[in-house]
């Protein structure tokens, strides 16, 4: 008895609850981690801890984020996938490859495999990154989406003629309807926000668990040393071990060829269909719009658009903003100020956006001036009408 007590590291023994805490932090930081009790049983190779560890290894090793489909795979399938994944990563212990896949034994081997993975890389952090909540974390910098979506439809105004009161009633009804849609959208937004908050809280708890784990993992590793000590030494026959490749059924070859051929045929068909459509459209579109006025009008509008686009582009390029890639960007706070080549600094982006804003405001003012002139001209044509422009900004 005395002897055994001496083998325990005195520093670890002084913090009596340190080991359970460390293991608890580990299991909280992993998705659906098993309880500390499972870990303890695995050290003594108890069979009841086996299936929980197979499932945990499966979650850690599977490349896809967890979904219902994955969770419903049978234990044997999960075990087989775990074995082949570990082998392809170069796991050295043969005993694992020889374990039965029905979850009846081998929990200590699985525990060793888990700690091998934990030692190789930041597993809890990787799993957190996989499952992170993306909302509120990202924003887009390019304006493509905003420009592509059509704005609200311009309200249709009838300038002349008496207005039927029924039309006004109809408009009132429409307005009331839109109002109610707005209210229910806002309610939906509230409900979804509270859902989002709850998800974020859960994510925070996982984050705290990971931090706790990192603080206390030394205790865990010392304990794992004792686990390794209880195992029988392995025969170092790694050189003669044939590489364990995942089993590919031989029949698959023929089916794959067939699939490839079918896809190629489909692609050809689609290309033909696209070509036909394009020709038909060109015939149709080319047909309408003949005549000198049409082509003159088209040329004029095209020139106007090109001029506007050129002006805008010049305005933006003048400030030398970097070419902004499309798609959402993740907001990351960095202390060191180092940036990868695909990263954008917030200050630079803000500057670019401000200059774009200034350009667009200039365009807006110009267009407003044009509108005012046009209105004045129209009003001038109606005698006896007094024109009171709104107070200038």
């Amino acid at each position: 008895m005395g002897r055994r007590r001496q083998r325990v590291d005195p520093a670890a023994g002084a913090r009596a609850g340190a080991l359970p805490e460390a293991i608890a932090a580990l299991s909280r930081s992993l998705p659906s981690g098993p309880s500390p009790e499972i870990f303890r049983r695995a050290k003594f190779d108890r069979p009841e801890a086996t299936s929980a560890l197979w499932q945990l290894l499966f979650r850690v090793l599977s490349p896809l984020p967890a979904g219902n489909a994955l969770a419903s795979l049978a234990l044997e399938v999960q075990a087989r996938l775990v074995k082949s994944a570990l082998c392809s990563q170069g796991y050295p212990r043969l005993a694992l490859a020889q374990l039965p896949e029905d979850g009846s034994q081998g929990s200590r081997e699985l525990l060793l495999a888990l700690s091998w993975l934990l030692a190789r890389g930041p597993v809890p952090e990787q799993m957190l990154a996989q499952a992170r909540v993306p909302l509120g974390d990202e924003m887009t910098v390019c304006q493509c989406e905003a420009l592509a979506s059509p704005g609200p439809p311009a309200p249709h105004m009838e300038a002349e003629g008496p207005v039927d009161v029924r039309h006004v009633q109809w408009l009132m009804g429409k307005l009331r309807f839109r109002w109610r849609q707005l209210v229910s959208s806002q309610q939906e937004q509230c409900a979804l926000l509270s859902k989002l908050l709850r998800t974020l809280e859960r994510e925070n708890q996982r984050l705290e668990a990971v931090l706790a784990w990192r603080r206390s993992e030394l205790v865990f590793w010392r304990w794992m040393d004792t686990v390794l000590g209880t195992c029988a030494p392995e025969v170092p026959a790694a050189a003669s071990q044939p590489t364990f490749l995942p089993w590919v059924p031989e029949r698959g070859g023929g089916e794959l060829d067939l699939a490839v051929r079918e896809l190629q045929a489909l692609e050809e068909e689609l290309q033909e269909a696209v070509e036909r459509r394009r020709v038909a459209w060109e015939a149709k579109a080319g047909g309408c719009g003949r005549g000198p006025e049409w082509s003159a009008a088209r040329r004029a509008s095209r020139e106007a658009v090109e001029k506007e686009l050129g002006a805008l582009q010049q305005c933006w390029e003048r400030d030398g903003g970097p070419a902004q890639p499309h798609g959402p960007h993740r907001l990351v706070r960095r202390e060191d100020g180092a940036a990868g080549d695909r990263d954008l600094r917030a200050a630079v982006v803000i500057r670019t956006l401000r200059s774009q804003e200034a350009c667009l405001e200039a365009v807006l003012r110009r267009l407003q001036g044009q509108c005012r002139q046009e209105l004045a001209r129209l009003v001038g044509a109606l005698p006896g009408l007094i024109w009171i422009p709104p107070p200038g900004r």
Partner: protein
Amino acid sequence: MSIVTVQLGQCGNQIGFEVFDALLSDSHSSQGLCSMRENEAYQASCKERFFSEEENGVPIARAVLVDMEPKVINQTLSKAAQSGQWKYGQHACFCQKQGSGNNWAYGYSVHGPRHEESIMNIIRKEVEKCDSFSGFFIIMSMAGGTGSGLGAFVTQNLEDQYSNSLKMNQIIWPYGTGEVIVQNYNSILTLSHLYRSSDALLLHENDAIHKICAKLMNIKQISFSDINQVLAHQLGSVFQPTYSAESSFHYRRNPLGIDRHVRPPLSGLPPLSKMSLNKDLHFNTSIANLVILRGKDVQSADVEGFKDPALYTSWLKPVNAFNVWKTQRAFSKYEKSAVLVSNSQFLVKPLDMIVGKAWNMFASKAYIHQYTKFGIEEEDFLDSFTSLEQVVASYCNL
């Protein structure tokens, strides 16, 4: 955007069951004629609208069942559970032991206030389950006792408590040669009350559906179940997800976008043919028309015929009055289907007839005592006549 359905009375509960059944079996149908992703979007949209999800995956209809006697409700609940595909919520129904003897006044003045709190509680729980609640769909008959009187009372309450939500009432127009003597009284009372508190009334005539069953479907012995299934099919093809012109990226979020007194004629099964339009006086003038197309070739379907201004009132342009909703996903094994939902003068004749018959009875004060006994006075009748006459007049003057 979710809809909560309130099924009232024998009629409402039987039809409600058929509607949910039709919606879910269409959602699960494999002959969607569209890509898998499209199909999944369709299914997800349908599910969110009408069903809530339970732990073991069986969808629960977002519905509240109300009746004054337990027989029909129990039948409805067990039919749903037997299907194995979906079911009603455990605490979603309210029923009593006695009926109301087809007395509108009893339903409105006695049952309503007496059970108001319990019924509104159940409805509130159902609404709270929705992440994004868009409105109510209330199924009831016009001429019976429970469904109509209580339905009018419940709709009024919903207007008070949920004034920001949309309410659409599905009303069953009774057979012309109907079973209930006072059905015309019940009808005018129901319609006038609903006109004030509901946002849209979707009307289906028993006679018209009967004709569909007999002529188009060749059913010999037409039962109420046949009628209800045809009705459910029509409603399903209106309510299932579609794209509208503004937002072609996702399924239209709010399905209840129809004005008052909307009324669907038959749903046509073959593709729409171009209509020849002279200024034919036979065409009923419409306030609004909505065409819903599902299935093959929807992108190339020609709906220009509906944009003819001759179809619409003078004070409304066709672009404001006519809408098309489309989806490539076929509905319930029909390769192509089309539904026309129309708010037009089509309803003037039947409405006028019912008002006329009710007035004749009223003039001789027949059966009035059954109503005054429970608080519906002669003034209430006169008010109803007045508002319905106004409706008829405004439609005639379109």
